[in-house]
């Protein structure tokens, strides 16, 4: 579903666990798309066809899913990244993740084409899409978040949800780093906070004040 301009959000609505996915349409050569966190292929417990649902939703929005050319992964947990390798194989899409998560990806049989680090990412040509990648560890060592300053959008992965945060007790997680990451991102000018999961809320939080309040709540947890 379209959020703003060429940014689409796909809120997970199945019974099992899976992530929200986000797509910037027509930002690469030949109309290629950027997809963020494609999620599971099939969910682990109930076997819901998550990837199939995502691709169908993209198609329902009038977009060609076969034009996914770049996949950004906020982190390496399978509920965010499992589909990436199938899409890479089938569509030739490039997969990008923070270098410190690449070893885990490899252990799952995946390949990484691009390493991410904090910095600028420019997509497109004359009317380019300019993004800022932040290294936001805490949930995992190489967790990244994606900021789109043009429309004040923050794609937060599993860093923050509506009135909660991602876990810090998984391997490589760190409450101290989580706190620092939240503090850093809370200073950004954000109108749309796009979360990695629809926990208690779809995970698309709109409005500067609402987002500030959300950061205040999650910040106070540490």
């Amino acid at each position: 579903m379209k959020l703003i301009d060429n940014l689409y959000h796909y809120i997970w609505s199945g019974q099992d666990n899976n992530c929200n996915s986000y797509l910037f349409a027509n930002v690469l050569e030949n109309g290629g798309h950027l997809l963020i966190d494609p999620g599971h292929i099939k969910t682990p417990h109930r076997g819901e066809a998550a990837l199939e649902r995502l691709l169908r939703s993209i198609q329902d929005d009038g977009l060609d899913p076969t034009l996914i050319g770049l996949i950004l992964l906020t982190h390496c947990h399978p509920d965010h990244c499992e589909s990436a390798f199938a899409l890479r194989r089938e569509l030739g899409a490039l997969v990008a993740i923070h270098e410190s998560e690449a070893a885990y990806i490899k252990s799952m049989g995946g390949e990484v084409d691009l390493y991410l680090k904090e910095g600028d990412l420019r997509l497109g040509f004359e009317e380019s899409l300019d993004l800022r990648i932040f290294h936001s560890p805490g949930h995992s060592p190489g967790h990244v978040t994606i900021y789109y300053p043009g429309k004040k959008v923050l794609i937060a992965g599993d860093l923050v949800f509506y009135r909660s945060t991602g876990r810090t007790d998984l391997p490589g997680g760190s409450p101290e780093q989580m706190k620092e990451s939240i503090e850093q991102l809370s200073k950004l000018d954000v109108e749309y906070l796009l979360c990695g999961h629809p926990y208690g809320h779809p995970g698309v939080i709109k409005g500067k004040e609402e987002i500030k309040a959300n950061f205040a709540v999650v910040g106070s947890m540490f």
Partner: protein
Amino acid sequence: MVKSAIELAMEKVAKMPKIDSQEIEEHKKQEFMAVGEGLANQLLKGTLRRKNLQAELGKYDENKRKLVINSLLQVLKKTVNFEDPSVNQLVFEIIAEIEPKTNIEKINEELSLLIDDYQQQKQLDYALLVKEERNRLKEMGISGSAITPNIHETEIWKNKLGEILSSYQEKLEVIYNMFPQS
């Protein structure tokens, strides 16, 4: 008349081609070379301690010992590599045990210089491929300081690495000549 099993076996043996003395000699040679390989592998794995090597070699007369040492050294040469200095160190320690008069320091020095050279070449070539990949990505509409291409697993890098290794193999032969000659 029914022949016994032994008679049948002897008939079969009689029909088999005769082995001449040269072949027998060659088989024995192979046998002792296998001993040398086995010793080398045990030393490298740590299942045979270096201080016990001379006792092992002492089991053989001079000629056989030469064969064993020769094949042991062949395995050690193949073990020398450009990526793992700790393995190379172990190889030198074993060589020092076989032939204490060997100038290990000199070999180590030469090899270290060669490895430094190799690593620099590798880095230069890798950086060049990364630059080429960045240009390709830019043509696709992907650029920025946040991304670094991962070339390590690509066929193009694996082939390039093979070329670099081949080019350094010749220089490595010079260092092999500094090993003890049995």
